[in-house]
């Protein structure tokens, strides 16, 4: 039974690699309009769980539902077309094209012209060529990348590249945005900006699910948190509740830096 406000629902999701159970019967949901975070100590299974939701990792058991539909075995590109778009942990963007071109490329699912449209120059093709340019400018503006529009994406600084990755994902106008450690390598200013962006994205109608280590980002941005350790979900709730949760503290062995 899925709650109609649920955008994403994960039930009993399990992944075994050989003898190791990386993710053990985890349940979680992301509701429409929420920003949900996933935290846990290193090696807890966050990346694997993230991969199961994005479709890049195949589950051993369990189910994934999107808007009530079973997408458990759906490949990543089809999830993308449904509106589930992700970013990646290691820098993953389109390095040898301009930033503007990259953001136009990201709009694939929002457009529909085919090869024939392109060859014949149909109105649909013309319309979309213009529309993608306009939308690209808007996304770049949102992320403060307008000045970099004509530069090769791969030539930008690390922080800017991470923004470009985000821009590509946003260009797809996702219903559910999955972020894998978006704050990694960002300084305090950049992280604060990231929080703003995530909230702006949510305000425009995109729900967000993020995996993150940076506690300040998590505490400020997220409505709800899930905590996973050794493949098991050990806690869920609002950030303040999680902060005081003993099991969580123990799982981190007290080595986590204080939240904002």
């Amino acid at each position: 039974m899925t709650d109609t406000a649920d955008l994403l629902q994960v039930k009993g999701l399990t992944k075994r690699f050989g003898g190791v159970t990386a993710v053990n019967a985890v349940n979680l949901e992301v509701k429409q309009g929420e920003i949900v975070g996933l935290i846990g100590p290193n090696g807890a299974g966050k990346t694997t769980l993230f991969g199961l939701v994005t479709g890049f990792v195949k589950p051993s058991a369990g189910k994934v539902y999107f808007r009530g539909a079973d997408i458990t075995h759906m490949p990543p590109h089809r999830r993308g077309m449904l509106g589930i778009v992700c970013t990646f942990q290691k820098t993953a963007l389109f390095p040898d094209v301009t930033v503007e071109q990259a953001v136009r490329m990201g709009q694939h699912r929002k457009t529909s012209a085919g090869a024939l449209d392109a060859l014949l120059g149909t109105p649909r093709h013309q319309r979309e060529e213009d529309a993608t340019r306009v939308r690209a400018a808007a996304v770049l503006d949102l992320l403060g990348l307008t000045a970099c529009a004509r530069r090769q994406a791969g030539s930008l600084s690390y922080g800017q590249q991470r923004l470009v990755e985000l821009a590509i994902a946003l260009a797809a106008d996702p219903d559910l945005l999955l972020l894998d450690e978006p704050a990694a390598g960002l300084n305090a200013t950049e992280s604060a900006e990231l929080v703003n962006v995530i909230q702006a994205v949510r305000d425009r109608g995109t729900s967000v699910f993020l995996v993150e280590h940076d506690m300040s980002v998590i505490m400020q941005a997220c409505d709800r948190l899930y905590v996973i350790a050794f493949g098991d979900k050990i806690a869920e709730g609002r950030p303040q509740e999680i902060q005081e949760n003993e099991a969580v503290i123990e799982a981190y062995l007290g080595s986590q830096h204080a939240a904002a």
Partner: protein
Amino acid sequence: MSDRGSESERPDPTGNAISPAVRVALILIAAAAVAGFPYTVDGYTLHLAILSGIAVIAASSLNLVMGYVGKLSLGHAAFYGIGAYTSALLATSLGVPTWLAILAAAPAAAIGALAIGPIVLWLRGAYFIIVTLSFSIVLQLVIVNWVDLTNGPMGILGIPLPAIRSFEFSSKTSYFYLVAASAALTIWCIRRLINSRTGRAFEALRENENVAMSIGVSKLHYSLLAFCIGAGFAGLAGALYAYYVSVITPEMFGFDVMVTMLVMVAVGGKGTLSGPVIGAILVTFVPEQLRIVQDYRLSIFGVALMLSVVLMPNGLVSLGPTLIRHWQRWRHS
């Protein structure tokens, strides 16, 4: 036809924000140059020009797969060969008229691509390269050994003079126009594809497959599309070659042809529209102009390939903008 300037992401000298009026003027000038060309050069140069035109089509077709989708298909010469053999067989065995035989070449090659594409295209990196190579070798073996169909190593002889209705392309000049028109059509088609949602999907796959998938690009669909379209144009080039030389052999499927195409794309500039054109013309003309003995050709190709990959990874077409950038930097320092 109202592209507001082509939004080429790579340094592409042939298309950054040129106004429509200037574009039309340039096209007219180019057309006039092409029209007058055969009358200003000797027969041998015209011959090379025809070969260049065919090479432009072949190299551009390889570039679609290699430069825009980013997969090194070492089997591409096979599609060139399929196009050549299809039209040659249709003409010699079934007496099919020229225009039909040449038109049939592209779909024949594309069907070949459709057949092996799904098997090969989802292989990553190294596996893809090696398997496409294996397929082309197997195909060459089949062509050589299936004597009943293809006349084996002797090849197909006596391909008739190309003719459309009663007009025979009996002169080099007329064939030059045919080839030039085909090359222009090829470039035009590829340009339209590249500057579109389809082209952007191709490039997404080249740049980062995972990101491409996450934004909804189907790897199989788009790489297959590029593979088949590339094969089709290669087939067209093969057919044009067959009719020009009127004798073809299984050598067309061989590594020599493949390597020549590779050098054209790599040296000219992969991932750009003008790169393969420049590469094709250079590789066809320069060895002749320098009177390079046939014996040394492959050694030089090898060195050219190595040097261009290391020194000019974006090919000769990137040289201009790169030099300009360096010069600007030097001036402002």
